[in-house]
């Protein structure tokens, strides 16, 4: 009966995997096409994606949107476990189910010069931001050589992209945090997206320099729409849901979960 698990509510839709491009081992750009157009997507907003094959794994996986067309969007997906492996193994033409766009992205009128700091796939929202606001500056950190494919691909889309790796095997040595010390708290603002460890370091560095800073968090999610209370993060104003109150938060507010 309802085995195809399709949906036609406004929040969820069936999309087609129209293109799959592999950047490096275990890192893919998935292009998804929808019959209905998408509403405007803010950088930092995300979608939840799942297959309609079988029920295991059955939760959608959250991914930031990294590019949009009228009826299409792009995701940058790293294989991290069972769900992402399955999604990245599907052939072009496959039908998937997409929930979203969800959440609140980075501020739409930053009013200051924006410096984006990304850890690996954390570059996704900045690829989208750049599509709309060419004057932002983007800094990408990668662990090493294996990620060359991401750096090359992202640099095509973001001319002037600064790439860093600890061992200087790709781009400059060091991390995107290096730039923080040069920024002016009055005229400049930091946006960051990447692994939690990096976000904490960015938060601390911006705090020290009194730089305004927005960070996009990653937490486990079941529903993505504020129903399950599974994705909460501790903030100065109490527990907040990453899916609907975030995923982008003012870094001064985030107290993390420990």
């Amino acid at each position, binding site marked *: *009966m*309802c*085995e195809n*698990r*399709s*949906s*036609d*509510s*406004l*929040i*969820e839709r069936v999309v087609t995997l129209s293109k799959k491009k592999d950047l490096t081992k275990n890192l893919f750009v998935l292009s998804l096409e929808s019959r209905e157009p998408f509403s405007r997507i803010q950088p930092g907003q995300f979608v939840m994606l*799942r297959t309609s094959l079988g*029920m*295991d*794994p*059955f*939760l*959608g996986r959250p991914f930031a949107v990294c590019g949009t067309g009228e009826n299409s969007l792009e995701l940058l997906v790293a294989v991290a476990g069972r*769900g992402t492996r399955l999604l990245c193994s599907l052939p072009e033409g496959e039908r998937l*189910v997409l*929930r979203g766009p969800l959440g609140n992205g980075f501020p739409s009128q930053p009013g200051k010069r924006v410096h984006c700091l990304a850890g690996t796939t954390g570059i996704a929202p900045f690829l989208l931001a750049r599509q709309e606001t060419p004057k932002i500056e983007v800094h990408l950190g990668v662990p090493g050589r294996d990620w060359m494919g991401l750096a090359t691909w992202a640099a095509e889309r973001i001319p002037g992209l600064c790439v860093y790796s600890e061992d200087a095997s790709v781009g400059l040595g060091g991390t995107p945090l290096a730039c923080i010390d040069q920024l002016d708290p009055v005229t400049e603002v930091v946006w960051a997206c990447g692994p939690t460890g990096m976000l904490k370091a960015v938060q601390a560095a911006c705090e020290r320099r009194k730089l305004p800073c927005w960070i996009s968090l990653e937490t*486990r*999610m*079941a*529903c993505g*729409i*504020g*129903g*399950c*209370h*599974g*994705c*909460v993060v501790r903030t100065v104003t*109490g*527990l907040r849901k990453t899916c*609907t109150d975030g995923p982008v938060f003012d870094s001064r507010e985030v107290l993390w*979960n420990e």
Partner: protein
Amino acid sequence: MSDRPVSSAVSIGGVLLRSPLIIASGTWPHEPEYWKDPICAFVGAACTKALTLHPREGNPGIRLWETPCGLLNSIGLQNPGIENFLRDDLPNISSGDVGVVANVAMESEEETAAVLSRLSVFEERFLAVELNISCPNVDAGGMAWGADPSLAARAVELARRCWKGPLWAKLTPQCGNIAEVARAAEAAGADALVVANTWLGMAMDPVSEKPVFSRKVAGLSGPAIFPLALRLVWEVSSAVQIPVIGCGGVSKTEDALSMMLAGASAVAVGTFHFSDLGCFRNIGRELLEHLAAKGYSSPMDLIGKGKK
């Protein structure tokens, strides 16, 4: 065989629902658009997140863990407390298209009594109160109330005194003999039984070598548990006269049909809609098609038919 058009309406101990599909507690946003059509078009009622007297933060640490066809959760009754709920959430959700069932977590008797008397002030805004004597994610109270027939009776009696509207008791699978607990809740005045809540499970992280959840145990829900919940529905509906609402792992039209054939008057869906918001529409439509094909005029014709 009948020529009457098929209606999806069901009655649960006098409460009329436009569809036998209910949205399970703790899984649905308290945002106005989620209590309106078209999202709710095929839904008969939706339950609120568990309510407690005082605001609760819920549990720290990881709260969700996907398992094979299932989900472990350790939310732990996070909610804004009854006053904030009545002020901030109720106006939003009670002006929609779908009836509101207030899920009340059993705490101390005083606290629960206080919550119920506050709810009573707004009695006409609720289809029913669902007394949650089955939460596995808190230390005190919670599931302990549902583990034992005499405690369950005591909880339901208390609620019966403080709340005059329709009263549902939500049972836990973690009890020696659920039929006895069910009979005790019926005798104490419950109008219907929700069978059941999550199943006590656990997850371990082999990297950190520690339990994933701060409370170690957590509640398992989702398609994985469907066969277990179906068995409880069969057992409980044979033990009591009051209606039973099947809850646990429903994901397909066949599941809803199976629950009703096993004795349920309605069926709640929680975890599955996390992955498929279209499930209500799909199940709702296919249920009507099935009834029409079989020549039934109402889903109520199915109730308990699998026992004959």
